[in-house]
């Protein structure tokens, strides 16, 4: 069976399993409502922290509040989508430890789809909602001469960003096959990454910016393209076409994450962990 067929099968299995988890969570209605609300508040606090900072200053690293909100909205929305789709992959380590990972391997569906849909939770829509609201605020208040490429870049950034974060989640899952107890390392890259990208690149040391541009290309979630949209120089001087590279970078990240996942799965099947 071809790759294409496998993808269709994977999406189908994902849909089936995610549906079961949604139904499961609905059996505890109050808990569901409480967690949806709580999730919204927790993520909102993220932005409140930035608002608090701007209650004391007019700019951060030379960027105004609407500009920082633009970064924040892009990063939070992209991360929110990845988090909704693959955010529960940190339960994989536990599944391997208690042996229930084996039960996924005897099903006629791609394992990655089954692991991705594991513990699917609609409460994670909270983060997307909150990110989108901030992005909306940024779009109406930011001072930009909107041209066609700039307008186009906004949805491109959200989708590519979501893909880059998804690749991180998958790579993190592959890592858990080797180190089941170290699931938290993943948080440093996923949650750490989205936190980092909520602030202007000018805030951080040049080496750190270089690292997240060339080594772990988080900067292509929003920094690089947003700098172009806002007409601000990127601190480490990239050519302007770099702003349009995020889809390619995202595709490369996904391919690498896919390879990592395959390596992880192969190692599980040959060691039994």
């Amino acid at each position, binding site marked *: 069976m071809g790759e294409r067929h496998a993808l269709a099968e994977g999406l189908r299995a994902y849909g089936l399993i995610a549906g079961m988890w949604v139904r499961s969570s609905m059996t505890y209605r109050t808990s569901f409502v409480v967690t949806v609300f709580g999730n919204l508040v927790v993520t909102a606090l993220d932005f409140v*922290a930035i608002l608090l900072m701007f209650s004391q200053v007019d700019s951060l690293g030379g960027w105004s509040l609407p500009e920082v909100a633009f970064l924040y909205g892009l990063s939070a929305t992209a991360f929110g989508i990845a988090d909704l789709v693959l955010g529960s992959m940190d339960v994989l380590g536990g599944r391997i430890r208690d042996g229930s990972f084996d039960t996924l391997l005897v099903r006629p569906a791609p394992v990655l789809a089954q692991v991705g849909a594991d513990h699917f939770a609609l409460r994670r829509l909270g983060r997307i909602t909150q990110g989108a609201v901030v992005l909306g605020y940024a779009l109406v208040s930011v001072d930009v001469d909107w041209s066609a490429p700039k307008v186009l870049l906004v949805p491109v950034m959200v989708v590519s960003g979501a893909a880059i974060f998804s690749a991180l989640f998958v790579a993190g899952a592959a890592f858990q096959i080797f180190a089941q107890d170290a699931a938290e390392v993943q948080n*440093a890259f996923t949650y750490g990454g989205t936190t980092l990208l909520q602030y202007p690149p000018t805030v951080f040391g040049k080496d750190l910016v270089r690292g997240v541009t060339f080594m772990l290309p988080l900067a292509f979630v929003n920094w690089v393209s947003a700098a172009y949209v806002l007409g601000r120089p990127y601190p480490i001087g990239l050519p302007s076409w770099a702003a349009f590279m995020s889809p390619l970078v995202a595709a490369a990240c996904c391919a690498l994450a896919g390879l990592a996942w395959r390596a992880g799965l192969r190692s599980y099947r040959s060691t039994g962990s």
Partner: protein
Amino acid sequence: MGSGRLYLAVAAGGFRRYATYRAATAAGVFTNTVFGVILVYTYLALWDEKPHLGGYDQAQAVTYVWLGQCLYATLAIQGGGAEKDLMERIRTGEIAVDLYRPADLQLWWLAGDMGRALFQMLGRGVIPFAFGAIFFPMALPTAPSAWAACLVALLLAMVVSFAIRYLAALSVFWLMDGMGVNQALMITGIFFSGMVLPLNAFPGVFGDIVLVLPWAAQIQMPADVLMGETDPLGAFAFQAAWAVVLLAAGRLLQSAATRRVVVQGG
């Protein structure tokens, strides 16, 4: 005094239990270090724009960040300490067994949580803090007395942190589900402890209010004591006062809960 030894053993048990998760501890150290680096840069930018914000200079702001990362797991700022187990025991009814133990329920759980906190501080907190001290300019005191005072403030912070979470856990006796309470713990913990921004940098009246809430005893007080920004005795008094009030409230709630269990025939 035999019972003192009992609680010491319980605390040692709490310490050992967390010490067995080595890979998880290493992962936590890494994550706290990464978050520390990100926060340090944002704080430096903030203090660049507004020097002496909240009375801190840049080195003090950096010190605050790393102390916060050191105490993040220690004080279970987002929850996940003894209260998690306690909630589970209440939910499943196993708590009835604990009530028959010839030990005080609150002290028992306090001892276990102190053991856990001590391990989290040594195993998970010290390394990020040392990392910060090596790679960033920090405002660390040279006088041993300042470190000793900070240690006292840390112990009191642990007690206050436990007292808050104990109250939250007992609410499960009435709610029968810890989900919402955990969310509330997480939200208040992150925000009012000063995890996102030092409380003295909060604006206006809001800033005045958060500084007198119990969560101020957790990171703000130990930080101020360490950096000589406040009178240690005043800080201890503030922390101790909240500890007493919250522990007393915990006892009150505990006896109400116990009566409930007895009435239910648990």
